């Protein structure tokens, strides 16, 4: 198997980016580094989605996660720390206690991933966007509509909490 396999190369590239960035999230000393490492992970996962033929999902991952959630996280990082602080501290504590259970769970998952005889089948054909749209209007209408209610209320909730926090500041 010495022939160059572009699929495998891309997979290992993406997987490498994902895993190394995730390790960066877990271990970086500066929270800004963690946040940027998270960007790497999210982008890597988006790439893996594309690799798996989930084109719509990959794009959604980029838009929602990186464009939305990550930006939020950055905002939070900056709002809760003095801007311009050179090292924005991001201490880990209890690595000795914390690592073994996490590693144990990971080992269990890896073992399960490798040992289980998954019932494999033929792959799904590539552009999935149309099929997803169809599903959302047919079998998945209920979750689709329901999630809109949840999003609305999440907005209201975030607003309630943030507004109160702001008011609190005003009072002081």
């Amino acid at each position, binding site marked *: 198997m010495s022939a160059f396999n572009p699929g495998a190369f891309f997979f290992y590239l993406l997987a490498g980016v994902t895993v190394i960035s995730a390790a960066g999230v877990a271990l970086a000393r500066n929270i800004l580094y963690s946040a940027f490492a998270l960007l790497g992970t999210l982008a890597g996962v988006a790439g893996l989605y594309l690799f798996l033929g989930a084109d719509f999902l990959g794009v959604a991952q980029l838009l929602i996660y990186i464009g939305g959630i990550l930006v939020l996280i950055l905002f939070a990082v900056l709002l809760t720390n003095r801007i311009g602080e050179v090292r924005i501290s991001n201490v880990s504590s209890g690595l000795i206690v914390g690592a073994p259970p996490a590693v144990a769970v990971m080992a*269990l998952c890896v073992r*399960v991933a490798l040992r289980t005889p998954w019932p494999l*089948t033929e792959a799904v054909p590539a552009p999935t966007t149309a099929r997803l749209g169809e599903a959302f209007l047919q079998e998945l209408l209920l979750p689709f509509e329901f999630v809109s209610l*949840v999003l609305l209320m999440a907005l209201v909730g975030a607003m309630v*909490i943030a507004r109160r926090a702001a008011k609190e500041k005003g009072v002081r």
Partner: protein
Amino acid sequence: MLDNAHSLRAFLPELIVAGTVLAVLFVDLLARRPHVGRAAALTAVGLVAAGAATVMTMRADGYGLFFGLIARDPLADFFKLLFLATNLLVVLISLRAREATDESAAEFFALTLTTTAGMMLMASATDLLTAFLSLETVSIMSYVLAGFRRRSRESAEAALKYVIYGGVASGVMLYGMSLLYGLAGSTSFTAVRLACAHTPAAATVLLAVVLCLAGFGYKIASVPFHMWCPDVYQGAPTPVTAFLSVGPKAAGFALLVRFFGGSLPAELVGAPAPWPILLGLIAAATMTVGNLAALAQTNLKRLLAYSSIAHAGYVLLALCAGGSDGTRAILLYLVTYLFMNLGAFLVIIAVADAGIGEEIAEWRGLGRRAPWAAVAMAIFLFSLTGLPPLAGFFGKFYVFAALLARGGSLMVTLAVIGILNSAVSLYFYARVLKAMYFEAPTVDEPLPLARLHAATLALLAVPTVALFLVWSPLQRFVDSSLGQWYPAEMRPRSAQLDRSVKRSSVQLANTSATK
């Protein structure tokens, strides 16, 4: 199994609740000034209407809605009514609780209503997707509710711990769900059941189920996924605590009943299923940790938080017993628990409204200062202990009866552990009673209760006593709720599934026959 258009009629209760959410928000937007009473009234009307719709569209059989994503069956109806009643009572409870409702009353009620909608969906979920979606809905709303208290560090801390813990727990659960999906190639509970029955990889199923239990267990606050519970219950506004300790917990059990009853086979191929052992372990640990930790508490809300952990353990015992006896015990327990637990929290609220805090020491001599509140508290606490002649006794009785009827050394051992735990629990409940009745108050003047609180207390205390004497109607209702289990129909989308269905139709017949 109905398609989208035909499902709407049977989905009316949820639609009404969702509509009420919007109505409450918009009326509040349109009106110039926020008004607690208006929002509460609107909420109450919506809840009652949803309840009426539930009763009117009730059918004795079960069927799938929205291509089998959720079920409409008597079991779901039972839980829907339970949730609607809980929410209605919480509306009554929070009317005077300024910490919850000042300024943002409309948002508060809209959030509880959305939680209720989520719980209703949870109780009828027959698919991993709807299970996740509804569970997450309930969680997200709960985070906001827990952080609702103005100017309170504790409330903010509770919300933070809740959101982080909830995020981790649901992430872990999702990982488990993904493994189940990988085994089945479908997210329907029925397909998962079939796949689990036929896969040789028992270890994978076990890991997947334990990971899923992290999510479900977090919702019902069972050990070892309970650690968020005391902190959140203590920090959250008391009406929210009351709501969280009853509603989402019951919803979690509804989901567990469906998950273990409708999703996982009684026996894996080749070996006896480890589920009774797994659930028994969790139940025993939950009861013991809850009761023991409660012994050392001085804050009433925290004490009740641990007590509610312990009660989740008792209900888990019933789940462990399984079968129709076990499920019946779960439903009955949850009804009695609704009254006594909400009642206990309401006493805290009512007394706090009159100016007494949450520390047990502050409750000294309450028996003389506020005799009716003290009597009500005594009723609720004795009922929580499971002493006759109160409803809680029957709740426990059915749990232990279900265990003993199932038999076997595991079940009997669990029953003995349960009885021992009840004995322990008496000690810390009695401490509250002792403070109320046998310790001298610092001030002697009487403590007037708000009329609303007094009326609501009576509304909760009377059933706690009366249910014991007139038990049969409730039991008949519960029995009819169990009469027709929704036979979890298949979703035909997956070709993979069709193959496995043909392969194992005999197996399915067997499992449903044993159930």
